[in-house]
């Protein structure tokens, strides 16, 4: 009998029975007759499209639903013997750690150290215990350098790690995470998943993780629960889940599984290691990691793509751009002499680890921040910033986007059905699309198309189907001459849309090249297909399948 089966004999970490829930003023229930049991020490991945009910299920498990959201609820939710619906989040705090989708809404202290220490203090832990726990969780999440910082000076990704640290610091028996990697760079995202697996294996912490980027965490999960329109659509092991996605919902398939599916290889792999093992011994040789036949990457020129005599038109041009930001403890260099030129019609992914300067570069180009040295010029720039809620001012979506131009923008992001909804009542992914519509309203066609469209982390909360829609929108804008720059941590999305990838590191450009080259040449900033095949320039399942079939990618 496996450890898991033995643990399933004891009281479950989470037991949901016949849960049906409707938000106040909602037309239809967010959850319908959901029953689910999570054993102590189990790692469960919640999959599903945007607005399918994943976040609501997590909120119910920690008592926020219905205590903070109101609405009507039926059924039972038990966490470690406590009735979550009766007790509410305050009582659940001893047993549950919860990380919501928007880290901005869940920091309550002034400094990072105080934020992480707060749950321990509330629990009554002594000073020495608190200090040790804060240090350990900060080391585990690679944020010791942030401990002294004010929380309102952190980037989105840094904030997400701090909120996660505060959720984990008490070592709760059940950890509920709602898209915890959505704003993390690939390095931090991978490390987080393995940290959770370690907590799960060594400490018996049950983990329930809702995520759109399944390729990041499928291999670590014991079980996958797919939520479809508020109901449990699938509940089983990861490999069975991949087989289920083929017929039920192909958009939930991971890139490696799609690669195998397109190439006609069985069974579908749950991760990179699984895929590489399956390909060993096949006629198509998969090069060993690090032994790829790619050409030596030439050193980055001092002024990439900026020739002194090059008079071609530019949608964005930065020369020696130097930006300092003051986080209250004195000015800090965020951009350090950036040289960059982007031509009209180019599709560029701006990547780099959290705090590398991606958002600062876009905000400086939009004139929201003044550089201390150098210059930047952008032609008729449209910018979507990181927090979509900042764009939502009115109580009806139709009032935000009136008239023909507004409706066209809503239609472009697939939100035309929600004209009468309150922006605060839609899901995180829908809010993101709505903010995009507001930023682009009147700029989608003809004379209104901007010279430069910049989107800062636009895929948060979006499922693959919606991301494909965003790629189509980017194509539409680029086809009309707009340069599109997307700051993103989502390597799969970058591979799908970007012709060029600019990698920032500590305020400087460290790589700048064709998307397929940059995203196939590394360990972290590489797509899942690139990590499986390790073939230069092969980053998407379609190209990979062509390679496996014997053709050229």
């Amino acid at each position, binding site marked *: 009998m496996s450890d898991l089966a033995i643990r399933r004999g004891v009281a479950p970490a989470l037991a949901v029975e016949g849960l049906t829930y409707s938000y106040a003023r909602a037309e239809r229930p967010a959850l319908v007759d959901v029953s689910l049991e999570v054993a102590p020490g189990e790692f469960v991945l919640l999959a599903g499209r945007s607005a399918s009910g994943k976040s609501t299920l997590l909120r119910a498990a920690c008592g926020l639903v219905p205590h*903070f959201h109101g609405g009507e609820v039926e059924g039972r939710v038990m966490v470690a013997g406590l009735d979550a619906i009766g007790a509410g989040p305050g009582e659940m705090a001893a047993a549950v750690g919860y990380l919501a989708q928007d880290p901005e809404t869940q920091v309550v202290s002034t400094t990072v150290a105080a934020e992480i220490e707060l749950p321990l203090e509330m629990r009554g832990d002594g000073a020495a215990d608190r200090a040790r726990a804060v240090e350990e969780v900060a080391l585990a999440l690679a944020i010791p350098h942030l401990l002294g910082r004010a929380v309102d000076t952190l980037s989105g990704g840094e904030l997400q790690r701090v909120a996660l640290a505060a959720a984990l610091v008490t070592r709760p028996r059940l950890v509920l995470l709602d898209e915890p990697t959505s704003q993390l760079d690939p390095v931090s995202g991978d490390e987080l998943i393995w940290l959770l697996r370690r907590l799960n294996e060594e400490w018996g912490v049950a983990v329930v993780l809702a995520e759109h980027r399944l390729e990041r965490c499928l291999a670590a999960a014991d079980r996958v629960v797919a939520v479809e329109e508020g109901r449990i659509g699938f509940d089983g092991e990861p490999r069975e889940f991949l087989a289920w996605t083929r017929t039920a919902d192909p958009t939930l398939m991971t890139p490696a599984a799609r690669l195998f599916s397109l190439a006609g290889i069985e069974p579908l792999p749950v991760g990179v290691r699984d895929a590489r093992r399956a390909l060993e011994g096949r006629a198509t040789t998969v090069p060993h990691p690090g032994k790829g036949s790619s050409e030596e990457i030439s050193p980055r020129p001092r002024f990439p793509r900026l020739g002194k005599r090059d008079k071609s038109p530019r949608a964005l041009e930065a020369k020696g751009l130097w930006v300092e930001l003051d986080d209250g403890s004195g000015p800090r260099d965020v951009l350090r002499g950036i040289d960059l030129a982007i031509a009209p019609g180019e599709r560029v992914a701006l990547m780099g680890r959290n705090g590398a300067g991606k958002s600062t570069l876009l905000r400086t180009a939009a004139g929201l921040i003044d550089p201390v040295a150098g210059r930047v010029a952008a032609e008729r720039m449209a910018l979507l910033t990181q927090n979509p809620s900042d764009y939502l001012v009115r109580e009806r979506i139709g009032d935000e986007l009136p008239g023909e131009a507004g409706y066209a923008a809503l239609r472009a992001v697939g939100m035309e059905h929600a004209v009468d909804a309150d922006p605060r009542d839609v899901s995180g992914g829908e809010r993101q699309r709505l903010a995009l519509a507001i930023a682009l309203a009147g700029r989608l066609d003809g004379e209104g198309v901007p010279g430069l469209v910049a989107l800062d982390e636009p895929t948060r909360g979006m499922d693959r189907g919606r991301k494909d829609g965003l790629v189509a929108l980017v194509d539409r804008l680029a086809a009309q001459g707009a340069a599109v720059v997307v700051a993103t941590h989502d390597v799969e999305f970058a591979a799908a849309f970007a012709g060029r990838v600019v990698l920032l590191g500590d305020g400087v450009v460290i790589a700048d090249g064709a998307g397929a080259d940059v995203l196939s040449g590394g360990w972290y900033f590489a797509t899942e297909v690139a990590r499986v095949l390790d073939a230069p320039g092969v980053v998407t399942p379609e190209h990979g399948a062509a390679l496996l079939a014997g053709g050229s990618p």
Partner: protein
Amino acid sequence: MRSPFAYIPRRGPLQSARPGAAVTYLGALVVVAFLYSSPFVLLAAGAAACIAGCLAGASKAVRASLRMGLALALLIVVVEALVVDRGETVLLRAGHWPILGQVDITLEAIVAGTVVGLRAAVTIVAFAVYSACVDPDRVTRALRPLAARSALTATLVSRLVPVAAADAARLRDAARLRGPGAAPVGKGPLARRLLAGSLDRSVDVAATLELRGYSLSGRRLEQRREPSRHDARFYLAAAAVLAAAIVGKSLGADDFHTYPTIQLGLGPATAAVSAVVAASGLAPWRRSGRRV
């Protein structure tokens, strides 16, 4: 860019003092502003709040709040002058206006509006100094024994202004970045969204506080004793201000009437109360360390 009202940790006496001491001190100035109508005392209270903020290193918050306070005061003066027709010194007969009827602008109404505006300005400046100098984390902790079952109460008291201040800058940026086909956002909708959003965000923060165990009824918190040698001076300053205000009031220091004609007294009692109140602004003064 950080809001001027955001708390910034500094090593000043006002920041080091316990929240109770700082709130008592700044609250005493607000109490005086509501207790007195004499412009001399009100100006003294305003000066004290400004001096205190500047000495505490929050001069940006003082400047920003003065701009807000004086703009609000001006609005109050205009409304009072248009709406109130009491007073014998008519400066302008502005004729018949829709809704308002006959409008006579009187000197007395302008002065009465100025007094109310000054009162509002003093309150805004004192609150800005509180927001910029008193650590909200310590306020939340201090409130826990008083409002252990209500994270929302604690949040509203300690977080509403910092949360609103942080949101305001981002909302302004987002308003500038809206597409031409989106409904434009004027100052009114932005202010409404800021207020509603701040309440929403405070509820979010309250939910997080609950999830962090704010209302856990487990063993008593190990109280962080963070005594400050500066506590006493702020309690003393507050006591001196309140005592002077109460005694002065009974001695006729608030000798000021606006209607039907303006009567403004500046007797020894008024001068003494004004001097004590203004001098209390020096409480956050920090002596330089002795050099060897």
